[in-house]
Each structure stands twice: as C-alpha cells, then as structure tokens.
C-alpha cells in the first residue's frame, strides 16, 4: 500500500517538476527576448549611428526584396479575382469583385504575404549572417575594436526593415490590385472604367494606411527575430542552421499573431 502511494506521489511530483521546469525555461527565454528588444530599441534611438550600414540594409531589404514581393502580390491579386468571380457568380455578385480585391489586398494579403516573404528572404539571411559572425568570433572582434555590435549590426537592420516594409507593401498593393484588374478585364470580360471606378469608390485611406502600419510592425518583427536568433546562435554549422530556421519560424508566427491583434485594433 505504501509503495503504491509513494509511486503515485512520485508520478505527481514528476509532473509538477516538468511543468515547473517548462515554466522556468519559458520565463527565462521570454525575459531574454524582452531584454534583447529593449537593448535593440535603445540603440536604434541613440548615437552613434552607422549611416553606411543603414544604407546597405535599406538597399538589401528594400530594393532587393522588390521582385519577390512584386511577384507574390501580382499573382495573389490575379488568383483573388479569379476565385472571387467563381464564388460571386453563383449569387450574381460579380460587381463586388473589384472591392473584394482591393480591400483584401490592401488590408490583409499584401502586408501579410510581404511580411512572410521577407521573413523567408531577409529574416533567414540576417540570422545566418549574424550567426556566422557569432560563431567565427567576428562579434567579439567588433567589441574589441570599440564598436558596439548592437549599434553596428542590430540597429541598422531593425531600422531598415521597419522603414522598408511599408514601402514594399505600398508597391505590393499597387501590383496586387493591378493583377486583379488584368484578370478581370482580359480574362473575365469586365469593363475597364467601371472596374477602376468601383475600386476607387470602395477603397479608403484607412484601408491602405492600416496595411502600412502592419507592414512596419512586420518589418520590425522580421529583423528583430533574425538578429535575436543570429546573435544567440549555437556553435558550428548546426547552430547557425538552427538559428536560421528559428528566425523564419518565429517571425512567421509573430507576424500572424500581430496581424490578428492589429486588425482587431484597426477595424473592430
């Protein structure tokens, strides 16, 4: 009887031990991330700044991401018009397609898809670059040369991504709406001027601006997750590989979570 009681107590104790350990690990990681965010923000707003590094990141994150964001937006707009037509034709509501395309693209699809594409392209690249620098002691070398790694590596990337994502999304909005227009006019036989006037009548400034705010938040998330995982990369090729994967996965998840929160804030 005593043995049975001891066994039950041990099992319960182990369960509590596992839960407690899990909670401690969770709070430790959360605390480390919050501390990293606070340091990154502090160094974004305090001199010295490194303009050449910032310019390099603006070009890398903004200009070189244009093709992938543009292609994503174009085909998203085209598919959206096609799918909307298939559904709306059943209810003789084809005229709503222009509105569905422009609202879906500006409010949700362009910022979210651009964020996810940039997370794959830039988040991974930032994590791999900074992770390799960590593993090869280049970050320690920066410190010994009187250069703060947060100012030289982290701040320019965070600032550049936060500034360039809205720019990319704005272009994505235009290309996405254009994709829907092309399919509607040349494939589905809509009238060009009425499609454009419906688009113009439905879209409001807030639809576009909310998407740009979202984009800035997603840019911040992507750069921060890339920097965080790269900066805390484990040793060797495996450590850098894991940092890269973690950067893309965590930034994608945070983008989806913050997209819901921001949508709730803007439109509820």
């Amino acid at each position, binding site marked *: 009887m005593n043995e049975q009681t001891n066994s039950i107590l041990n099992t319960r104790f182990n369960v509590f031990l596992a839960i407690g350990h899990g909670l401690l690990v969770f709070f430790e990681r959360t605390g480390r991330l919050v501390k990293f965010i606070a340091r990154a923000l502090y160094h974004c707003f305090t001199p010295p700044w490194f303009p050449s590094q910032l310019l390099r990141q603006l070009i890398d994150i903004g200009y070189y991401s244009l093709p992938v964001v543009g292609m994503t937006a174009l085909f998203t707009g085209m598919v959206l018009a096609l799918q909307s037509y298939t559904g709306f034709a059943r209810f003789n509501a084809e005229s709503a397609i222009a509105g569905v395309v422009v609202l879906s693209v500006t409010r949700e699809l362009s910022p979210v898809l651009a964020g996810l594409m940039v997370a794959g392209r830039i988040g991974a690249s930032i994590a791999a670059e900074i992770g390799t620098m960590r593993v090869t002691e280049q970050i320690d070398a920066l410190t*010994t*040369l009187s*250069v703060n790694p947060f100012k*030289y590596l982290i701040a320019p990337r965070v600032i550049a991504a936060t500034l360039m994502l809205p720019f990319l999304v704005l272009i994505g909005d235009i290309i996405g709406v254009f994709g829907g227009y092309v399919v509607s006019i040349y494939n589905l036989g809509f009238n060009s001027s009425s499609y454009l006037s419906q688009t113009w009548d439905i879209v409001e400034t807030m639809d576009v601006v909310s998407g740009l705010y979202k984009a800035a938040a997603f840019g911040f998330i992507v750069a921060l997750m890339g920097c965080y995982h790269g900066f805390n990369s484990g040793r060797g090729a495996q450590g850098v590989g894991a940092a890269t994967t973690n950067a893309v996965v965590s930034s994608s998840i945070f983008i989806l979570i913050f997209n819901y929160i921001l949508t709730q804030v803007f439109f509820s």
Partner: protein
Amino acid sequence: MSEKAIEKLKFSGVKKSFGAKHVLNGIDLSVAEGKSLVIIGGSGTGKSVMLKCALGILRPDSGSILVNGGETVNLGHSERDEMMRKFGMLFQGGALFDSLNIWENIAFGLVQGRKMNRKDAKEIAIEKIKAVGLKPEVAHLYPAELSGGMQKRVGLARAVATSPEIIFFDEPTTGLDPIMADVINNLIVEQVKSLGATALSITHDMASARKIADFVAMIHEGRIVWHGPVGDLDHSGNAFVDQFIHGRADGPITRRTA
C-alpha cells in the same frame, strides 16, 4: 616579476561559472607594463574564458580585474568602450570581417571606433600590411582570398593598428605550419616591442610560448598553478608544468581534466 614593476593588468580572485561548471576558480595573476605573459594549459582549463573576462566580453561572477590600476568589472557601456581603446586582440581564427576587404578590416577600429577619416586610416592600414610582411596589393582582397597564415598576419595588423597599450593573443599559431608559426611569433615580438605594449597570450604551442613570453603562467582547472620567468620553465619544479611542456600522458593532468 620585479616587485617594483608597474602592474598593467591584474586579476584577483576571478571566478566564472557556466551553470554548475566552474571554469575559473579564483585567478590571481598580474602582468607588468611592457612585458609579455603567456598562459599555457590544456583545453577546457579556462584560458579563453580568462581572456574574455579581461576583454569584458564575459563578466566574472566575482573577483577583480584591474587595468592601469582601475577596476574594469561592472563598467558601464561608455566606460567599457573607452577602456577597449587600450586593447588590441588577435583572435584564434582571425575573426576578420568577411564583407570588408583587407585594408577596411585593418582600419576598422580607426574608422568606426575612432572616427578617423578613411583616407588617413587607409594609409595606416597599408603601413601595417607592410609591417606584417604582406604586399600592399593584398589591401583590396577579401579575407576569403587569403591563406590561413596571411589571415593571421592581417589579424595581427588589425590588432596593432590602433596602437593599443595591451594586446591579447588567442592561440596565435594554431593551424599554422611550423615555419609560418615562427614567422607569426617573430612578428608578434617585433610589433609588441615596437609599440612598447603589454601582451597577454594563451597558447598550447610551447615553441610559441618560449618565443614570445617574458613570463609564463600555467592554468589548470581554473587556477594558476605556476607562474614565473620563461627561463625557469624547464626547471619549474612543478609537476603540472613538467607534464605539459613535455607532452606526457602520465602525470597529475589526466585526460578527464585536460
């Protein structure tokens, strides 16, 4: 070491642990101004951690590290940045910045750390390239285009470019053939003497230690077990030192602890 010598760098009771693993167990050691101290010891004995504590890359759990008599543990960011200007460091793998060419690597501390204009910094970088026995043409190459020995020379040029007061060398000859290792040792001695700097090196390479050291200290299980002039190394009377310098498997240092 002379009692009257000025202590440039002094460790007192420095302890550092990672979780349950105690890496430094109370380091007491000092380096006199203008002298070269080499720390020898097996892998995992705490050499690199000690160096990183001195550089401020790691923070000791307890103890004191004095530079020019001033405490460096728990310095604020700006004081730490100011203190780093006194330091130069040659990393084991070179740690050259992949995205910058050779002259930009050497001039990095001058341009980014001290805000010197690029033209003047480039001139100094080219001088340093020549001083470490490389041709000025390598200035525009990238680190990946250089051999291991050339990368070590560039790393040395970068370490001395800012004319530091204290230079740290982390395994300066690891991965080099014996001849190139001797070339690097000669360059280290030459550069340290010409700057009048104080040097703290860690190495496994006894030939390197004998060449560049004025004093040698042996670290084992996070403690300094012997410290003395390089000339006393062969008759130290210390079992750890004897085993290490002769590379014997038998002795107080076991494979578990080495």
